[in-house]
């Protein structure tokens, strides 16, 4: 599990851990049943306070993303998948909000923005098709 902590971007470190684990689970890179590193190990790896890692794990447990097992150890919940979609939507929603805010400041209205998204999507689909054709040859 590779996480990256930045002390420059203002987001509290426990929240950076929570968000990144959520993201890894949502994107399928951390599968249900996968064991998270022990608090101490992750703290030493990231060079952050173990209390901070413990807090992040508690938040993840409260959110149902991970489960503590009696035999010690923290695991990605088996039930994480329905939640994963919600998390995925949340991540994308945040990006959309940022995009909308920026577009508004540059006086590009939402109709124009929708057209632009459509255009980019078509372009991306085309490119992908071309690439897979190329791979086949």
């Amino acid at each position, binding site marked *: 599990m590779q996480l990256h902590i930045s*002390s*420059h971007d*203002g987001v509290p470190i426990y929240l950076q851990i929570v968000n990144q684990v959520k993201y890894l689970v949502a994107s399928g890179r951390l599968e249900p049943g996968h064991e998270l590193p022990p608090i101490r190990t992750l*703290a*030493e790896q990231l*060079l*952050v306070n173990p209390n901070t890692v413990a807090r992040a794990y508690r938040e993840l447990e409260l959110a149902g993303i991970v489960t503590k097992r009696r035999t010690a150890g923290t695991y990605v919940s088996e039930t994480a998948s329905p939640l994963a979609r919600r998390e995925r939507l949340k991540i994308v929603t945040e990006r959309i909000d940022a995009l909308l805010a920026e577009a508004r400041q540059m006086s590009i209205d939402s109709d124009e923005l929708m057209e632009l998204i459509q255009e980019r999507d078509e372009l991306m689909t085309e490119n992908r098709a071309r690439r897979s054709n190329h791979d086949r040859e």
Partner: protein
Amino acid sequence: MIASERDTADNVIEICGVTRQFGTKRALNHISLAVPRGIVFGLVGANGAGKTTLIKHVLGLLKAQSGSVRVFGLDPVKEPVKVLSRIGYLSEEGDLPGWMRVDELMRYMRAFYPTWDEAYAQDLRRQFNLDPAAKVKTLSKGQKARAGLIVALAYRPELLLLDEPSSGLDPIVRRDILGAIVRTIADEGRTVLFSSHLLDEVERISDRVAMLKEGRILFTGELDEIKQTHHRLTLRFDDERQQAPRIDGVLSWEGRGCEWTAVASGRLDALTIAASALGAEVIEQKALSLDEIFIAQVGRPLAPAEEV
């Protein structure tokens, strides 16, 4: 368990109203501070703010001119042996005996501390790649700091005191020092107090911080709480303004015309309400790093009301 839930009786360090004068300079001005067991406490402030003087009081190297200092419930000036045997200390200077070899230094320190863990000491020495036969004075600054770290950690002290440990060191040695702090705190019940002006390090590992300026505590609290109560807000006004607006809690303003950016302390909703009362819209809002908070807090002149 977060620190605020702890029993206040379980403070490893208790400093009450300590004042220290050097000639005409007041190095510490009515400082009160408590460090609960099991946390990392970061002391930040500009050079000359009083961090080292404060740490010297904890070590009992300086006697409080007024007020009191208690470490493990004891007066470190009156009971230096009982207190110092439980503290691991590393300073920027390192003040190790230069004529000793690394192995001699380790043997020498071991004689003082009944709790010395030789296997741990040797582990650290190998990990730090320190030649046991090398004279301390021939070591590089980074290797000296590592040697200092071994003799501060090997007896597994209950309290680790680090005074600007990373000052002037390369990133790899700084990593070793941070790693040592993390390992120390991961051992149940150990406490770390460290001073630093490298605020990204402080932000990474501290549970609590105190910000010193000119011998006084500007503010102290849980790091997360400090971060939650400081914001950068960009406001947009309908009309151009010649002067920065006035809003309670704002530490500094930047901008001109219709857009002004504030670094502010306080609750976000209160700040937003204050902004809209002035007819402004908050168009951007961002959390701040400790570095940015420090600059905003320390950069502003002390209000007359705060003078004692």
